[in-house]
C-alpha cells in the first residue's frame, strides 16, 4: 500500500485526490492547503485528513507513513515543494509544467536524483484514451507517413489561487501552462523538435485573455500547428494528424457522448450546456495508477521527468519566439539523461 499526501486542493488536487480515493494499492493519507477550508472540504469528500500546510501534514503523519508526495500547486511553487519532499526522502509527483524556467526544472530533476527519490510529472495527455488510440493508429502506419498535424486546446480564462494564471512571470500564460500538454504529446508521437515559431496575445492585449499559435518543425520533417486559447467559452481540445495515406481527426467539442442542457427558466437567464465524456477510469486515475506501479516495481514511466524537461524547453522556445519574432532552434546537442 502506497500512502500519498496531496499538496494543494485546487482543480488538479481535486482530480488527483478523487483518483487516489478509489485506487486499490494507494491510500490518500492527507491533503494540505493553506486554504484550510478548501482542504477540509476535499478531505471530507475523499475520507482523509486536511492540513493547513505541508509541514503540519508531515509532522502529524510522521515521515515514515508517507511514501509519495503529490504536488498540485501553482507552477511557481513547484520547486520549493519538490525540494521539501525530496529532503524527507519521498517520491514526488509534480503537476505540469515542471517549472517556469529551464534552470529550475534541471535543478529539480538533479536534486531528486541526488536524494534518491523518483520524480514524475503529470503530463496527463499521454493517458487520455483518445490520444493513446491516435498514437497507436499512427504507430501502426494507419495514416502512412505523418505530414501536417494540428492540435489545440483551451476554453475560458482560468481563475486560480491569487489570480496566479494572470501573472505571466509565474504561469507563462497558455503556452507554458496548457499547450505544454500538446508539445509533450506531439514530441512523444513525432520525436525531437528542431524549430519553433510562435505568436501570442501576451503583451498585445491587456484584458484577461490569452491566445497563442505555435508552429513546430520536427527533425523528422513533420510540421505541427498548435493552438492554445483562453479566449473561448467552454473547454475543448482537438487533434488532427494528416499523413500520406490517411487522416485522424478528433474534436472533443464535436464528439461529446453526453450533453446536458438546462432549460432557460426566464427570458433573462439562458440555459447552460454541459458536455461530459465519462470513463470508468479517468485519465488522471490512469496516470497516477501508472506512476504508483512504477514506484512499486522501479520501472520507467511512460513519461519521464526528462520528457517533461524537453516539453518545457519547447514551450519556452515558443515564448522566446513570440518575443523575438523569429524562429527559435531547439538545441538538441546537449546530451539528454534518460533515467529519472
Amino acid at each position, binding site marked *: 500500500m502506497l500512502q500519498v499526501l496531496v499538496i494543494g486542493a485546487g482543480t488538479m488536487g481535486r482530480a488527483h485526490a478523487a483518483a487516489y480515493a478509489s485506487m486499490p494499492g494507494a491510500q490518500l493519507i492527507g491533503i494540505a492547503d493553506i486554504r484550510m477550508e478548501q482542504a477540509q472540504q476535499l478531505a471530507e469528500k475523499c475520507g482523509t485528513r486536511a492540513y493547513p500546510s505541508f509541514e503540519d501534514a508531515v509532522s502529524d503523519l510522521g515521515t515514515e507513513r508517507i511514501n509519495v508526495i503529490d504536488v498540485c500547486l501553482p507552477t511557481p511553487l513547484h520547486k520549493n515543494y519538490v525540494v521539501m519532499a525530496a529532503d524527507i526522502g519521498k517520491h514526488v509527483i509534480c503537476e505540469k509544467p515542471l517549472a517556469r524556467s529551464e534552470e529550475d526544472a534541471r535543478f529539480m530533476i538533479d536534486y531528486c536524483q541526488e536524494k534518491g527519490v523518483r520524480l514524475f510529472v503529470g503530463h496527463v495527455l499521454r493517458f487520455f484514451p483518445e490520444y493513446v488510440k491516435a498514437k497507436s493508429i499512427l504507430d501502426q502506419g494507419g495514416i502512412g*507517413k505523418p*505530414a*501536417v498535424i*494540428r492540435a489545440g486546446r483551451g476554453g475560458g480564462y482560468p481563475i486560480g489561487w491569487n489570480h496566479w494564471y494572470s501573472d505571466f512571470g509565474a504561469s507563462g500564460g497558455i503556452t507554458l501552462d496548457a499547450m505544454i500538454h500538446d508539445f509533450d504529446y506531439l514530441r512523444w508521437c513525432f520525436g525531437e523538435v528542431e*524549430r519553433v*515559431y510562435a*505568436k501570442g*496575445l501576451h503583451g*498585445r*492585449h491587456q*484584458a484577461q*485573455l490569452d*491566445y497563442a*499559435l505555435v*508552429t513546430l*518543425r520536427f527533425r523528422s*520533417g*513533420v*510540421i505541427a*500547428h498548435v*493552438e492554445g*486559447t483562453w*479566449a*473561448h*467559452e467552454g473547454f475543448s481540445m482537438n487533434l488532427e494528424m*494528416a*499523413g*500520406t*495515406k*490517411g*487522416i485522424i481527426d478528433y474534436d472533443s467539442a464535436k464528439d461529446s457522448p453526453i450533453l446536458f442542457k438546462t432549460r432557460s427558466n426566464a427570458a433573462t437567464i439562458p440555459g447552460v450546456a454541459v458536455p461530459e465524456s465519462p470513463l470508468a477510469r479517468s485519465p488522471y486515475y490512469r496516470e497516477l495508477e501508472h506512476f504508483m506501479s512504477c514506484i512499486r516495481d522501479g520501472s520507467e514511466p511512460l513519461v519521464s521527468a526528462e520528457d517533461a524537461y524537453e516539453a518545457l524547453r519547447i514551450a519556452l522556445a515558443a515564448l522566446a519566439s513570440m518575443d523575438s*519574432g*523569429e*524562429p527559435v532552434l531547439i538545441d538538441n546537442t546537449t546530451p539528454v539523461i534518460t533515467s529519472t
Partner: protein
Amino acid sequence: MKIGVISFAHMHAFSYTKALLEIEGVELTGIADPVEERGRKYAEHFGTVYYQDYRELLKQGLNGVIVTSENVHHKEHVLAAAKAGVHVLCEKPLSTNIQDAQAMIDACKANGVLLQTAFPVRYNTTVVRAKQMIDEGKLGRILAMKGTNRGRNPGGWFVDPELSGGGAVIDHTVHVADIMRWITGTEVKDVYAEVDHLISENPIDDSGILTMEFDNGVFATLDCSWSRNKEFPTWGDVTLEIIGSEGTLSIDATSQKLHVYTDESGYRHHAWGDGMDASLVRDFVSSISSGAAEASVTGEDGLRALAIALAAYQSSEGHRTVAMAEL
C-alpha cells in the same frame, strides 16, 4: 455584352462559363484553348465558338474575358486582353511572381480596362455575413485569426512548377490571405512559414503552415496544405476563426452540407449552400456594365495575396521571418 473565356486549363472555367450563360444580356462569344480537344469539347457543351488562338477570340469585339489558363500564362493572356481593350477576370493566383502581376495591373490601367482577381470566397454568403458581423463591431477589436484552406492534391499542371509556379502554398494561400486582408482592412507586415513536400509523390510543396503579422498588430496562421486524402468526405475546407476583444467568430465556409453515406462512394459531404462562382462572375459583368472605375476585387488585391504566398516560400527556405517590404 460579349464575353469570352481563355483556356479551360483551370477547372473553375466550367462553373464561371456556366454562370455567364445564366446572366441576362450576356453572350458567350467563344472559348479559346490551345488544347483543341478540350476547347472543342467545352465550346460544344456550352454551344459557342471554339478558337485555337486566343488572339482570334480577342478580335471578336469582346467586352470582357475570363482568363483561366495555367498560372504562368496569365500574364500573356491578360496583357493581350488589355491591349485589345477587353476587361479581364483573371483566375487566382494572379501570377507566379510580383513583376508579372505588376505588369498586368499596369497594362490594364494603361488601357483603361478592369482587372479583377477571381477570389470566389469573397462572394461566399457565409463569409459575407461574417464580414458584416465584424463591421457591426460584434467582435470588438480583432486580436488574432486562425485560417485553413486545405484540399486534395489537384494533380495535373498544378504539380508542375513550370506551369503553376508552385504547389499548395501558391495555390491555397491566396484565398484566405485575401479574406484576412479584407476583414481586417490592413496589410500583412511579415510572414513566417514552414513549407515542404511531405505527402504526395510529385516533387512539389504540399504542406504549409504560414504565420502572419499585420500592420495593426493582429497575428494569424494559415494552413494551406494539400493534406486531404481521397477518402476525406469532401474536397477540402475554407475556415477562419477570429479572436476579438468581445468574442470569437468561427467561419466554416463549406459547412452547409449533408452527410451522405453510400455503398458506392462511402461517406461524402454534399454542399447545399449558395454557390459563390456565380456571384463572382455576376459581379464582374455588373462592374463592366456599370462602367465601374475599378473591379470590386482588384488586380492589386491579387498581387497582395500572391506576395504573401511568395514571402512564405522565401521564409521557409531561409528559416526566418520575411518582411513584406523585402519583396
